[in-house]
């Protein structure tokens, strides 16, 4: 499939009609790397599906308060674990014998009688920002760290890379759990004005409000994921720069008097941004998964803010009696992961010629 698409892409990019014959065709110049890559991406059906899904999820997150039938804290505790009639027919077991039947909620209610659908919709405001902010921080720290380390090389590189090695030797999950426990007990709860905890909490409130949530402790999740996520990018950027900086065109640019900043910005970054973009896109699911894991173990978002992780955890607890509760958050999480993985794979095929066809 891939090769057919590629040759079609090449044929179009090179203005050729009909099938491309042999490798010689790939030697012909194309208009522009990004146009070429974008064209190849749009020819990859899975990647396009991924992209469409991601855009849809972003829209859901932005307009959550318009789409969701209720607010995420609204509920009627009388109707706890209520199930609509149609769900009792498709789910295993005999829920209709003991569960409360109520068609008020399209996908049922949780143990506090809150609408599951609304909570899942608001959950996008947790998961997507976590993915994107994780990617941004990883990109920012990792790229700068890796670029400096790779470009200056020598002793600087040695020291900087040993630090990364040490961070790698440490179990990441343990680090992030410890960090979240630290944040929760240092900054959780009320604090007197004037103290550090008070100020941190105020920043956190602002972050939560930007995300469109009334509570959640999103700042701490961002910090926790950001601090543990940059090492991979740093290594990748360093490796790429190490091999690039010896190339002739960098030397040529230096000969005509370009300064370090210009060389990095104009000549090195455009050459390494492809693989880094790919790695970042493929890492977004892992950031989302980290948040889900943290919320699953109760160290993620603060209740009552809905996270898919905490919803899956609650749903798993009631799996025997109310098997439907786990389904919605689990499926939405799976779809999100698929979307980012599809897009990442598509980007890699489109941007990184060496990886083409190897997946």
């Amino acid at each position: 499939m891939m090769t057919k698409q590629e040759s079609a892409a090449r044929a179009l990019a090179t203005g050729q009609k009909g099938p491309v014959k042999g490798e010689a065709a790939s030697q012909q110049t194309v208009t522009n790397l990004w146009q070429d890559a974008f064209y190849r991406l749009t020819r990859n059906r899975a990647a396009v599906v991924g992209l469409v899904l991601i855009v849809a999820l972003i829209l859901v997150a932005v307009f959550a308060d318009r789409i969701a039938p209720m607010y995420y804290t609204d509920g009627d505790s009388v109707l706890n674990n209520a199930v609509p009639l149609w769900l009792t027919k498709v789910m295993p077991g005999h829920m209709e014998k003991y569960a409360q039947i109520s068609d008020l909620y399209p996908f049922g209610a949780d143990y506090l009688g809150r609408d599951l659908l609304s909570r899942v919709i608001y959950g996008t405001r947790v998961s997507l920002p976590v993915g994107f902010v994780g990617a941004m921080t990883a990109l920012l720290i990792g790229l700068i760290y890796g670029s400096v380390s790779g470009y200056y090389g020598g002793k600087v590189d040695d020291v900087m890379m040993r630090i990364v090695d040490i961070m790698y030797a440490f179990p990441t999950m343990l680090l992030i759990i410890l960090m979240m426990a630290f944040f929760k007990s240092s900054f959780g709860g009320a604090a007197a004005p004037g103290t550090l905890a008070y100020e941190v909490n105020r920043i956190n409130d602002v972050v939560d409000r930007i995300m469109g949530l009334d509570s959640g402790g999103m700042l701490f999740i961002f910090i926790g994921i950001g601090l543990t996520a940059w090492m991979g990018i740093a290594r990748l950027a360093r490796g790429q720069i190490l091999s690039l900086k010896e190339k002739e065109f960098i030397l040529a640019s230096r000969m005509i008097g370009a300064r370090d900043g210009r060389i990095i910005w104009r000549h090195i970054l455009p050459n390494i941004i492809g693989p880094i973009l790919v790695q970042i896109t493929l890492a977004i699911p892992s950031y989302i998964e980290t948040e889900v894991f943290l919320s699953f173990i109760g160290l993620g978002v603060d209740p009552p803010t809905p996270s898919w992780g905490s919803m899956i955890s609650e749903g798993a607890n009631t799996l025997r009696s109310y098997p439907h509760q786990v389904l919605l958050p689990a499926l939405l999480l799976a779809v999100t992961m698929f979307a980012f993985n599809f897009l990442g794979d598509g980007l890699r095929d489109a941007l990184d010629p060496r990886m083409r066809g190897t997946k």
Partner: protein
Amino acid sequence: MTRYIIRRLLWTIPVLLFISIITFALVHAVPGGPFDKEKARPAEIQANLLKHYGLDQPLWKQYTDYIGITRNPSGKYAGILQWDFGPSIAQRSRTVNEIFSAHLPVSATLGLVALLLAVGLGVPLGIIAALKQNSIWDYLSMAIAIVGVSVPAVVIGPLMILVFALLLGWFPVAGWGSLRYVVLPAVTLGLGSSAIIARLTRASMLQVIREDYIRTARAKGLSEKAIIVRHALKNAFIPVATVLGPMFAALVTGTFVVEQIFAIPGMGKYFITSITNRDYPVVMGTTLLYAVFLVAANLLVDITYAFLDPRIQYE
């Protein structure tokens, strides 16, 4: 080779020391202690409790006591060097050693089954996909792989229970006991790993079958089976072996999510509850256990390199 192994083994000492110091510092840096409860205890009782567990000592002394190179307050050497991982503070009647011997076998069994499944499923899928590149088999196995990579255990676990336990009734919903209890959690655990292995195997297999020595083997007139098994697979397995190391450590020491969903009495729980309970000896013990498994697995991987590829030599 022997010298290399000895040197690597010696290297594990500073690595483990480093990890233990960092963990110790981090877990003590988290505010709060194991005896902070909603209802405050009288100060004398609190002081006695701290004293009983040696938590009134200066931090460095607590650390050296834990390692077992200084006498603890009761005048004995009782630390890791004496194979004493200390008491669990949250579970008053148990020691960390007892927790290990009760729960590690469960996690290890589950982890090993999951790992076998991951390799047994991932490697063949990867080989088929590579040998029949761009065929329907390639797309099919890579489709399975992308499901495994994308869908986390938090999702697969409940879905497995829904379909195979509640709907079809083939396996028990949760719990631990006979072999039937192992199947669903092991599949849940192993699926993600098998997907990673399948993709890696395919990628490295595609690279290897284009090497010169494969062409030489073909030119000699060897059978296709001999070429694949004896020449290609051995080399293609090297990148796969690299990820097996950390994978093994993570799977064997327990995965919290899967053990939680399937109500399995494994180690995973202790990784997390010990931190939220500030159960210092358990945090230290579980982390060190994980680190030991990781270091050992990585060493094993490096040794297998030499067997897989004679060009790799250690001195």
